[in-house]
């Protein structure tokens, strides 16, 4: 079961909207597919990200994967813990493994994302 208060992309990112702040990370399904995460490359605060465009990279021992932004906005905070402890993406993907917080430009973008049931259906189909 994925958290019910989040919205999801078909590329396995999640977003939590609180006021005009959107917190972004990857799902437990994504973390499991990646394997042991050893490096996360994220944009600095002040940069802007565009919905469905790449905003960073997550690397496991074996694979390199692009990260896609669920929503557009200016980066207001970056999870600096991940620089030293990238394994948080595996151990707590919906919590301490969050990646960036952005100031949400267009709240309407969230409506186009998958709800928890829709996302679970996606991963169940593989």
């Amino acid at each position, binding site marked *: 079961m994925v958290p019910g208060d989040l919205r999801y992309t078909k*590329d396995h*990112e999640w977003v939590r909207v609180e006021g005009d702040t959107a917190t972004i990370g990857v799902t437990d399904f994504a973390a499991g597919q990646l*394997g042991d995460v050893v490096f996360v*490359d994220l944009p600095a605060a002040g940069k802007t990200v565009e919905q469905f465009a790449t905003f960073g990279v997550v690397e496991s021992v074996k694979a*390199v*994967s692009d990260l*896609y932004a669920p929503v557009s906005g200016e980066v207001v905070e970056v999870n600096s813990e991940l620089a030293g402890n990238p394994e948080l993406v595996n151990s707590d993907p919906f919590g301490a493994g969050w990646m960036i917080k952005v100031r949400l430009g267009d709240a309407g973008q969230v409506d186009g994302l998958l709800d928890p049931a829709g996302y679970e259906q996606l991963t169940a189909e593989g």
Partner: protein
Amino acid sequence: MTEAVEPTEEALPEQLHETALVDIHRGLGARLIEFGGWLMPVQYAGILEEHRAVRERAGLFDLSHMGELVVEGDDAGDALAAALVTDPRTLAVGRAQYSMIVAPDGGVIDDLIVYRLGPERFLVVANAGNAAVVSDELAARLSGWRAVLDDQSLATSLVAIQGPRSAEVLAPLTDVDLTALRYYAIAEGNVAGVPAHVARTGYTGEDGFEIFVDWARGPEVWEALLAAGREAGVAPVGLGARDTLRLEAGMPLYGNELDRQTNPFDAGLGRVVKLEKQGDFVGREALARVAKDGPAKRLVGLRITGRGIARHGYPVLDDGEPTGVVTSGTHSPTLGVPIAMAYVAPDVGEPGTILAVEVREQPVSAEVVPLPFYKRDPSTR
């Protein structure tokens, strides 16, 4: 997030070879991928955990995808000496050597281990993806000699146990005297009641053994080793950790460090080539020229000091200008930093040289370091 590196099992093409152990891997929860035409486990519990198991305890590998070619006949030694860059005639019975088969231009067709099983009986082990090519090429090179090649690849299961506790786990299961079995030696005996060739060879930088048995009996040997090793913490290990282990140990992987466009001297393996051996061999003229003039590129170790992980195919820069390419790169589980092997221009290959790797269009600082990155503590032998 999209992931493009590993195909899922469902998306695999048809007609992949499966080892006799494939159902055991599935039962252990392995993720299976295509490798060299085979459906193989890439990981079980996770690459980092499996890597650590091999460095600290021991790991169990299914290597049944490797090619096993038996060459025998009155001229077997002479024929192999003419076909390969090494001189297998110098091997004592029961010993092994690292070797290569090259094209007439010196380009590497495959790297091999040659075991001398008897006076005129040799076992040549080739990489899975090259096994058919090597089998055909070697058979062609044997023509005219009193020697025949018997391709046993699909009749052989190969199970390896690698890591500091390998010997203590294997010893109670075998009548082979492991204390007398030296590094790069092979002996015949039984393992868990199964007739086997037991070799003290591997691809991890640790002590360990490779066990060749009849195809159908691979599962018995695997299960016996896993059960016997439970107390010692033996873990099944997939191709993912096999790759990080060999990279830390500075060992080349065919398709990355070695290919048809690369000769043994480029790869820093000129010592393997026996130019002075008796009789001609395929590639001699080309390799003698490289030995005299020096190779055009140099294989180096890189320790990434900037932020990023170098990967296969990334450009290597010297003062902003291209000087080579990364052949293998990962985050080193043992050292905790990104490491890579790369081909660079010979004049920037000295340890201590500061270069850069282009990671997603950004230069990331890297230092040339001696290979291997990791060497086991000799007191563990």
